[in-house]
Every structure is written in C-alpha cells, then in structure tokens.
C-alpha cells in the first residue's frame, strides 16, 4: 500500500484505534440501551408523525378541499413538500454512488446514514402525490395496467407518469444499494449478539454472510455495478421532477435550465440535511473520531459548490427572462422579486445564495455551530425555492380575473409537520437498530488513512489484542 501524501488529513482520528475498537464503537448504539434524550426526541417525533397521519386521514376523509389550493393555484403546498423531500433524498445516492466512483474515502463514514436518510426522505416524498390524488384508493391507476381493469391506460406522454417510474426506480435501487452495504455489518452484529431473538433477527438480515474472500469480491463488484446504475439515477430523478414543470408553457416553469439546476439544488439540500443529521448524530453517538471536522468541511464544500451552481442558475433565469423580450416571462420574474410573494423569493435568495457564501472561509467551514446553523438555513431556503417556483408562477394567471392567492390551512401544515415527525421517527429507529457507520468499509481505510496506522505508526494496544 502506498503511503498517503502528507498534505492529506487522516480520516479516522485517535492513535489507539484498532479494527476491534471500530467494531465496538460502531455497534455500541445497537447493543446498548437508548438514553432519555433519545426517548424524548423519539416521542416528540412520533407525536408529530401521528398528527401528520391524522391530517392525512382527515384529507382522505373530506377530500382535497380541506387544503389551501384552488383552481388557479392548483399545485401548491403538497407539491412543494414533494419536491423538497425528493431533493433531500438525493444526497444519499450521490454519496454512495458518485463518491464511490470518484474514490472518495471520506464517504465511508457518512454513506450509511445518508442512504438511510435518502430512503426515508423518498418515502415522505412519495406520500404527497399519493394523497394529492384525492381518491387514494385509486392510486394504482398510475401504473400501466391492462384496460380490463376498467380504465384507460396511463398517459405515457405525461411527465407526471415519468415521475412515477423515475421515483420508484430510484427508491428501489437506493434501497438495494443500502441493503447490500448493510449485509456484512449485520453479520458483525449477528456474531456479537447475545440475546437469542437479536441473534435470530440479525442472522436473517445478514443473509448468511460468512465474510470469506469470495463473498467480499462479489460484494465489491455488486457495489460498483450498483454505483454505475445509481449515478444516472441521481441525474434522472430530479431532472424528471423538474420536467413536471418545465414541459409546460407556464412562464417561470418553462425554462431549459431546470433539469441540471434541479439536480444541483437537490444535492445542495440533500447535503444540508445530511449535515444537520450527522452533526447531531456524531455527538450523541460518540462518532467524532469517524465523522471528523474534515468530513464536515468537505460536506460544506459540496454545499457551497452546489449552492453556487444554484446561484448561477437563479441569475441566468433572471437575466434570460429579461433578455428573451417575452413580456410574460419578464413579468413572472419581476413578480417573484417584487410581487406579493416577494418575501418568499428573498427568503430563498438569502438562505440559498447569500448565507452559504460564508463557507468560502475555512474557519467557518470547520466550525460546528456555523455548519449546523447554515445547514438549517439551506433546508429552509430550498423549501422556499420550490414554493416560489410553484406558487408565484401560478398565482397570477394570464387572465387577471383568475388571479388568486394561496394560504395553507391547518391540514396543509399538519401534513408537512407530520412528515418531518415521521422522518425523524424512522431515522431515530435506524440509529438504534442499524449500524450507523459502514463499519466494515471503515476498516478498509484504517491502515491507509487512519491516524493510528498512518506514517508507519501502530496502535499501542494492537499487540495486546493479538495476544489475547
């Protein structure tokens, strides 16, 4: 193995880290008991989630009329939430697939949690178009089923249908990718489990993994193939979501920049959410030596790069709307920036374009507090971006007599807050029952990039452990 260049910072901190220590520390949350803080947050999240489920039940019982949207603003809160959640769901696959192809070793510490977050976020996203159908019991109609079922075939020309395929493909591939990665780690937990039930369950989950060389070769091949498959998906999902808007002829929606700009925005928001979650998780679960300041910094770099891409896209859109000389186009953007919803536009601009610029400073990139606050800002900003695109483009129609407003009702708010509750509930459960770090993958970089082995060092305890 070639020695790593001196300019590189170690990715696993601590001079006493051995393979065994990694196993111990990563398995600790699964094997130990949850503390009071965990139970408190879990209960709160669950209550919010239940409130959301109540709001959804109410929506299904009474119909879409209980929401704030109307004939002019036919898409509003729900689709905003849908796009927001799908966007957040982008980081996981980017980290697991694209960073794998780029051979970024730092991904090993964050991929598992990010992928879990992706799965949960996509689940939350899929909820919204589902309940927006109104008659949710007809939701299987989005699938191309034979005419004997009593309806016509789905409209293959519609981007909404492409979306069904795009998201379900993305969800399945992400799930498989995540699960394949989990198998060896489940096996480690299985081997260490003391309770018979836990042993049984983890034994089923680990698919009889033995950890021999052949299995590892196949594991790596499958990871690479899945990474190859998942990379185009990172692009396709949000491109197709953007086409829900961009294929239309509505000013503010129809613009060719949408596909790449939505993808950049999705990565931006996804990384911000990963940052939010991991900053808490590394503290609560004692993973500071694995998710180091350098990991935080690198994620902030991704945030500032994708944020700048989003920023150029905003400016391009604004400029071209004027340059085009098309009256409606120019008005749509003027209305965004100065109309009745201008506050949401400036909210978006501030949170997405201005505040991330602080990350150009190394000191701020490496500050935990600043990172946490700014990641929340990005989460908020990206929600407003979708709100701006959807609501402000619709609320002033071509005919002024159609002009209207959108106000969310308590049901709208309840469903949204509910998805946040459910998301956190699922994530918290994940931290108790799944290995939050990819422990076997982490071991693969310990000798090359870990502080304890790099530069010809050896952890002090290694010999004792070997002897025992």
């Amino acid at each position: 193995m070639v020695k790593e260049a001196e300019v590189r910072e170690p990715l696993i901190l601590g001079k006493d880290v051995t393979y065994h220590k990694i196993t111990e520390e990563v398995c600790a949350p699964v094997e130990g008991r949850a503390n009071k803080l965990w139970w408190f947050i879990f209960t709160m999240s669950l209550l919010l989630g239940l409130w959301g489920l109540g709001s959804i039940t109410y929506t299904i019982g009474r119909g879409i009329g209980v929401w704030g949207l109307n004939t002019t603003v036919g898409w509003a809160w729900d689709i905003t939430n849908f796009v927001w959640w799908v966007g957040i769901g982008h980081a996981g696959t980017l980290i697991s697939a694209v960073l794998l192809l780029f051979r970024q070793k730092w991904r090993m510490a964050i991929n598992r949690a990010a992928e879990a977050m992706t799965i949960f976020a996509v689940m939350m996203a899929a909820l919204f178009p589902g309940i927006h159908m109104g008659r949710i019991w007809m939701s299987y109609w989005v699938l191309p089923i034979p005419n004997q079922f009593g309806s016509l075939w789905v409209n293959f020309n519609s981007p909404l249908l492409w979306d069904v395929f795009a998201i379900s493909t993305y969800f399945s591939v992400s799930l498989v990718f995540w699960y394949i990665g989990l198998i060896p780690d489940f096996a480690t937990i299985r081997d260490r489990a003391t309770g018979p039930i836990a042993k049984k369950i983890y034994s089923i989950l680990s698919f009889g993994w033995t950890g021999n060389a052949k299995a590892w070769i196949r594991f790596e091949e499958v990871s690479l193939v899945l990474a190859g498959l998942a990379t185009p998906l990172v692009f396709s999902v949000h491109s197709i979501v953007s086409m829900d808007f961009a294929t239309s002829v509505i000013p503010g929606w129809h613009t060719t920049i949408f596909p790449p700009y939505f993808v950049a925005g999705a990565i931006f928001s996804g990384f911000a959410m990963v940052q939010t979650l991991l900053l808490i998780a590394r503290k609560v679960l004692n993973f500071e030596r694995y998710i180091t300041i350098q990991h935080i910094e690198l994620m902030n770099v991704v945030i500032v790069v994708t944020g700048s891409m989003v920023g150029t896209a905003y400016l391009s859109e604004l400029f071209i709307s004027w340059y085009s000389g098309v009256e409606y186009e120019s008005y749509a953007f003027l209305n965004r920036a100065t109309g009745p919803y201008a506050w949401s536009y400036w909210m978006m601009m501030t949170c997405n374009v201005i505040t991330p610029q602080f990350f150009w400073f190394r000191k701020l990139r490496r500050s935990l507090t600043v990172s946490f606050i700014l990641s929340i800002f990005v989460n908020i900003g990206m929600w407003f971006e979708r709100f701006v695109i959807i609501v402000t483009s619709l609320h002033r129609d071509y005919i002024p007599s159609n002009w209207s407003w959108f106000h969310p009702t308590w049901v709208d708010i309840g469903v949204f807050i509910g998805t946040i509750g459910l998301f956190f509930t699922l994530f918290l459960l994940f931290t108790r029952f799944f290995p939050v770090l990819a422990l076997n993958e982490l071991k693969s970089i310990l000798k090359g990039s870990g502080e304890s082995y790099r530069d010809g060092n050896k952890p002090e305890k290694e010999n004792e452990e070997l002897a025992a």
Partner: protein
Amino acid sequence: MDQFTFTDKSKKLFIGLIAVGVIATLYGIFSGQGARTWTSAMISGWFFFGIALAAVFFIGVNNAAQAAWGVVLKRVFEGVSMFMPYGTLLLLIVFLGATFHWNHIYHWMDKSLYDPSSSHYDAIIAGKEPYLNLPFWWIRAILLLGVWNLFTFLFRKRSLVEDQEGKTSKWFKKNLTLAAIFLVFFGYTIHIGSWDWIMSVDTHWFSTLFGWYIFSGIWVSGIVMVLLITIFLKKNGYLKEVNDSHIHDMGKWVFAISFLWTYLWFSQFMLIWYSDIPEEVTYFLVRLEDYGLTFWGMVLINFIFPMILLMSKDMKRNAGVLTFVGVIILFGHWMDSYFLFTPGVMKDQGVIGLVEIGMMLGYLGLFLFVVFNQLTKAPLVVKKHALLEESLHHHIN
C-alpha cells in the same frame, strides 16, 4: 526520456496542415464565399479555443479536488492549455471582423435594427440593446478572455516554479486557493461567453441551459484531446509514468462527460420540442428541417460511440479503441460547433465542404504545433508535487 523532442517530421506535418488551412481560407474568400469562410473560422476557432479552456478548467478541478491520479498528466494538460492565447487571437479576428462588418456572424451588430424609422427595425433585438451593444459586448469579451488567459499563465508559471523550488505543501495550498478563485470566475463567465459569442448568433432565440451545454461540450473535447496526445506520447516512448490506470481514468472521464453532454443536449432539446413555443422552437426547426441527417448524426456520434465502445473496462485501457473513439467524437464535437454557428449565419445554405474541413485541418495544425512546442519547454512529468508519489503509484482494478 522526460524531455519531449518535437521532431522535424511532426513539424512538417503540422505546417502542411496549416498550409491546407490557408489554402482553404483563400479559396473561400476568393471564390466569393466570404460568409462561409468567416463562419468556418468561428466554428474551428471556438472549437480549439474551447479545448484549451477546458484544459485550464480541468487543471483547476484537479487542484481543487486534491486529486492525485492526474498529477502525472498535468504537463499534457498544461501544454494543451497554452494554446489559449492563440485561440484568443483567432476569436478576436472574427470579433473584429464582425465589428467592422466584414462578416455578418452577429446579426445584432447591424445598426439599422435599432432604428424605429428603418424598414429593418426589429423590436425584439432593439429591446436587447442594453446588453447587446458593441461597447459593453467588447468590455465583456476582453474581461473574459483576459482573465482566462491570466489564469492559464498563472497555473503554468506556478507549475514550473514548483519544479525548481520544491516546497510542495506550500504550492499545494496556494494552488488550491487559485483554483477555487478560477473555478468561481469560470463558473459564472462561461455562461456569459456562451451567450455573447454563440447564443447571440441566433439573436432572437434564448435558452437558460445554453451555457451549461456549451461548457459540457468543450469539456469532452478537451479531455479527448489530452487523452489522444497522451496516447501519442506514450506510443513514442514518453510518459512511462502513465500506466493503464491513468489511461483508464481518462477513459472514464470521456465516457462520463459524453453522458453529461448528451444529458444537457437532450434536456434543452426535449423541453423546447415538448413545449413547442414558437420563439424557442425555431432554433431546432432550422436545424432539423435543413440539416436533419447531419444534425441527428452529430448527436448520435457523440452519444453512441462513447457509450457503447467505452462501456467496458478493457476498452477504456485499450489505446487503439480510445484513439478510434477519440478521433470520432472529437469530430462529432467539431460538428456540434458547426451547428452552433452555421444555421444562424448561413440559414439553410450551410454545407460541410472543402472550406470547413480545410480550415479545421489548418486550425488543428496550428493547435498541435503550439501544443507540441509547449511540451518541449518543460519535463513531461512534473518533478515536484505534493501528490506526485500517490499519482506515480496510482493503481485501480
């Protein structure tokens, strides 16, 4: 052999190519096809300028990403990037020609379009006057070209100084900062350049994606060019340090960025085609109705060849396959450049004939002459770099 010798044989070949270009240009001018010749100068001028620009961009990305694998290829990237001043000159000739109305590549430079009393008055173009007017346009052009050239020289100079001076970790940090500044500037200005020099050819038309599309196009061309030169050098016994893994990585880039280009091409095309808004769809109507076969051919070449032939690992390490695919998609992207300008200037009268091909060969000759000459000026592999050891031992399965 870490010092490259520019053989007389190569020199003669490149000068021969330049002669072909000169003859094609003269033929174009004296056969009364001025518009065609000027357009052709822009097509090839932009194409080779773009390659140099992409090389600088890639040097910047490698610095910013702290990537080790590309370190042994750095000098080849630098050599290609050093065509920048010559490319700039070639573009400036066309720009000056347009400004003095020797050519009519930029329709909006016609003053009568802005005069309400004129029969040529065009309300839409007149509305763009605050942006599309000669002084402001020239200020932008000089700013962009000047700063891009400046960064090209800075990267090159620092690389040569580092070889002499050592102090690798200092230069590593300094280059990281320089690359970050360059990438931010480039990220914004590549859009402006694309709008000013290319999109404004079809003055009425607009597309927000355009800058991204142009950017991906030069990126593929730049990487392919560097790859082809690397293969040539290796074949002639140079660059022993470059192993299969480095070549494999370059092959991956060609593969990946070809996909990116196709993705952006498709996004732009599909959204305009689907919405069918008159202001926008005219752009593709001209290209599809008057140039249908070649236009689709260009898209297919640039997508299908890299996709099928570079899918497997072995192909990405095979010099023969890479050369074959490389030459074809390089031509494919030259065709892309052809379609950026020709339909806008020549309407339905554009052809690909002696003038276009001849001038392309002439520009290629000049490009290779400059690049090979630059390659002789420094060792082919950097002597000092913080990540050199990692790069020399680069190995992937």
